[in-house]
Structures are given as C-alpha cells and as structure tokens.
C-alpha cells in the first residue's frame, strides 16, 4: 500500500516535471505560431493576443509563393549533405581514436580545436579561398565549411560512445571471423545507434541554424533560411508575421526527421530499460 502511493507520487512528479519543461520549451513556439497568423496590427497589443481575432494566411502565402521555399530547399540540401559527409568521416575517426588511442591524445584535441576559432577572423580568407575555387554561393561551399565545426562535434560525441562500448562484444565477433571493419558496421554501430542518431540530428541542426558563414559565403542561389530570416529584421519594420511563418515552415522538416529517427533513439531501451 505504502509502496503504491510512493509509485503514484513519483509518477505525478515525473509528469509534472515534464509538463513544466514542455511549457517552458513551447511558450515561445506557441507565440511564434500565433504570430504567424496575425495581421500587422496585432503584433503588439496590450494585453498580448494569443488567438488572432481575424487569423490570416497571408504570411504563409508570402513565404510559400514569394520568398521562402527556395531558401528552405537550400538549407535542407546543405544540411543533409553535410550531415552525411560528417557522419561518414567522423564515425571511423571516432572509432579509430577510441580503439587505438584510447580516446585521447593530440589528434582529438586538434579536431576539437576546429570548432574553437571565432568565425570573424577566418571568414574573409575563407571568402577569398572559396572565390578562387568558385564555391561562393554554392551548396558545396557551405557543406565543406560546416564540416569543420560539425566534425569536431561529431567526433567528440562519438568517441564517448565507442569508448564506453564493451570491447568484449566486438572481440567476440572478430573471433567469429568478422574483420574489424565488418564488426564495426554489423555489431558496434547498431548498438550505439542512439549516439549516432543524436549526433546526426544535431549536425543537421547546427548546419541549418548557422548564420555568419551562410551570410558571407552565399548571395542568392544558395541562400539559407537563417540568412533569409535575418532579412525580415528591417529597421523600419520587423516583419514578425512573415518571419514567424518561415520559422514554423522551416521547423517542420526537422521536427518530422526527429520523430522519424526516434525508434533508433529509443531502441537502446529494449536492451536496457531502467524501471522507474
């Protein structure tokens, strides 16, 4: 009996905590959704209006037909290619560093340092370099530039997962005749899929959200959503409605992606669920 109340209280606390977190996370999002349906007159009201009196689709129409979808496509292409590239080179690198160097040494630190440099000083030489090889305003240019800071993130995160992975399982597979490479692909990767999924999601998000490089290294053809969003910040009039509509539209693909890969993230649970 006492135990049951304890369990009940615990469950209530857990859900209350999650509800609070959801509220905090979604408060500004809800405001964005609401703003995306507003007319200019309702951006600032006292008290703030959550449900627009005359909801309008004009903001979405503007984004869909005039300015937005092309930029969204650029963002998605650049981010997907970048994520693929980064995972492709970072998984073996992190594995190698974890297995052969115990996850330490100057190599991983050098890779990490790629993320440390302030963009302000490298951006002009990068611009000159990219221009020399004709990569200004191209998807490929940004895919390359983003791989520097994303590889640092991916390698470091994955090293942790590889180091914690029990060597014995892998060695058993190699005794059974797998090469190191196939043991990695067939045995290790599926078991650390949560780590890979999270790495991939955030590489994607980092690329989508990057602003300064995208601003300087693109003009029009490869312009990304985050650069276009900043264009709505006019000194004479902030286009809150249009901006909000583009935010919502640009969140949707990432949201769907996050939902879609959840099963790999939760997959770990089948091996090791902790009972509440």
């Amino acid at each position, binding site marked *: 009996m006492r135990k049951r109340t304890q369990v009940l209280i615990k469950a209530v606390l*857990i859900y209350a*905590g*999650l509800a609070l*977190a*959801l509220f*905090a*996370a*979604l408060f*500004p*999002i809800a*405001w964005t959704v609401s703003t995306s349906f507003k007319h200019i007159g309702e951006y*600032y009201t006292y008290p703030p209006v959550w449900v627009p009196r005359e909801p309008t689709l004009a903001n979405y129409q503007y984004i869909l037909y005039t300015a937005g979808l092309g930029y969204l496509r650029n963002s998605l292409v650049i981010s997907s290619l970048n994520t693929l590239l980064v995972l492709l*080179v970072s998984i073996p*690198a992190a*594995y*190698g*560093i974890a297995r052969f160097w115990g996850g330490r040494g100057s190599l991983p*630190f050098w*890779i990490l340092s*790629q*993320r*440390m*440099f302030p963009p*302000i*000083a*490298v951006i*002009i030489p990068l611009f000159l*370099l990219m221009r020399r090889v004709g990569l200004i305003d191209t998807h490929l240019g940004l895919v*390359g530039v983003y791989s520097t800071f994303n590889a640092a*993130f991916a390698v*470091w*995160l994955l090293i*942790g*997962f590889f*180091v*914690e*992975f029990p060597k014995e399982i892998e060695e058993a597979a190699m005794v059974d005749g797998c090469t190191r490479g196939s043991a990695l692909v067939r045995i290790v990767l599926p*078991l650390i899929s*949560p*780590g890979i999924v*999270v790495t991939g999601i955030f590489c994607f*998000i980092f690329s*989508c*959200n990057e*602003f300064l490089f995208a601003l300087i290294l693109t003009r029009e053809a490869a312009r990304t*959503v985050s650069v276009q*969003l*900043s264009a709505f910040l006019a000194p004479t009039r902030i286009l809150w409605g249009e*901006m909000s509509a583009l*935010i919502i539209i*640009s*969140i949707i693909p990432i*949201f769907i992606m*996050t939902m879609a890969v959840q099963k790999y*993230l939760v*997959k770990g649970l089948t091996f*090791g*669920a*902790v*009972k509440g």
Partner: protein
Amino acid sequence: MTVWKIYLSRFKYVLPVILILLVITIFPLVYSLSLSFFHCDLRTGGRWIFAGVDNYVQALFHDSRVWSSFRNTLMIGGPSIGLQLLIGLGLAILLHRNIYGKSVIISLLVTPVMISPIVAGLKWRMLYHEKYGAINAFLRMLGLDAQWAWLADRNLAVLAVIFTDVWVWTPLVMMVVLAGLQSIPLECYESAKIDGASSFQAFSYITLPLLKLPILAVVLIRMIDTIKLFDIIYVLTMGGPGGRTETISFYAYLVGFRHFRMGYAAAISYIILIVTIALTMIFIRLMRPKEA
C-alpha cells in the same frame, strides 16, 4: 615493417577527417595568423602594414573592452552552461523510462534548438517587452505586478540573455545525455540490484560514471560555443545596456566587421583561441585525471 603496417591500418580510420579539415581550414588559419601581425584596414584599401606584436599588446594591455567582454562572457556563459547541464540531465533522467507519448514529448522538447538562434533571440526580444511582451503578461496573470524591463536593466538583461541561451541549448544536453543513458547495458543495473543498491546509489555509482564521456563532450562543445556566443546578443541586446552583455565574440565581430580592422580582429581572435584552448585543456584534465 609490421609496426608500420599496423600504424597505417589504424591511421586510415582518421585520415579522411584530417584531410577534410586540413583542406578547408589551413589557408584561413595561416592567413589570419599572419594578418594578426599586420595592420590591415579594409576601409582604407586593405593594405598590409607590418605591426609586429602591436595588435596583441593593444588588445591585452590597452583595450579595456577586451577584458570586460571576457568577463561578461564568463558571467553569462558560466551560469548558462550550469543550468543547461542541470536541466538537461534532469530531463534526460525523467525521459529515460516508459512514458506515454514519449517520442512526441522528446520531439517537442527539442523544438527550441531547431530555431535559428538569430531569430530565437528576436522572438525573445518580443516576449521580454515590458508592456507588450508575453512573459510579463503571463506573470501579471499569476497576480504579480510585472512591469519588468527585462532588457533595459543591467542585471535583468544578463539574466534575460542567460534564459534565452538556456532555452535554446538545453535540448542538446538533454538529447546527448539521453542517448548516453540508452546505451548503458541493462546488465550493469541488474548486478547492482542483486547487490541491493538503492536507485540513487545505482545512479551515482553506475550511471554517472558511464555518462562521463558524453557529458564531457557536450559540456566542451557548449563551452566552446558559448565563447563564440554572438547571434543571441546581436539581436537581443546588442551588448547593452551599459555594455553588460557585450561578449568577447560580439566585440570581435564589431572590430572585424563594423570597424573592418582585420589585423586587430585577427589578433583578438587568436587570443580567444588561446583562452579557449587553455580552458578546454583544464577542463579535460579535471574530468579525466588519469590522463595527467
């Protein structure tokens, strides 16, 4: 011969990433390192005039804004990363169980980080407005007489920046910790249960040590990114009021891209790089004493 062979067979794993990074970054890094020893002003034609270590001396000994912006970065970044870690860890633990609607809840909790920080900052600027903002409106609904000018008060503005940063980046910490939790083999817990450990003991002696590396990685990444904190400041406060939220990267941005003093901006950037490397090394030593 065989030693070399083994070495090569290991090296091939890391070679691609090294090549990619070298190709992209070697030229900009060498360029900006050399630039930091020159005076180069784009406004007056961008000629390189040799300056020796003038730029470094200027930044370290004659420019009080370098120091104050480092201090501001610490005042914002320290509490912000601490909160992100606490909240992220807490949420990950809450989520690491069978919960109704779990995948939807996780996706919803991650939405803040899906918004580009440059517009997340703008959204918050609207929310923080003392009269028309939704935050004060919500507090008034709770019965408080909230007319707080979040971004106009020296101390509240620092808090406001911290809140925004925490809002944006906590999902990253949460997801990394969650992935780490999911990867811990169940056997570890079962043996602990047999030994009669309480769930708190199981957490501190089994879970936390196994989470150490993912947490180390995510805190390092957040630390590095916080030293580069620029976009939220740019749209939220522009470094004001009274310069309290002017972070070092925002200052470097002003010097490089508003004043176009490229040599000086490069020198400040290298100082930032050295400080970041030092902090990172100290942090890694603290977390992994074995290495020392």
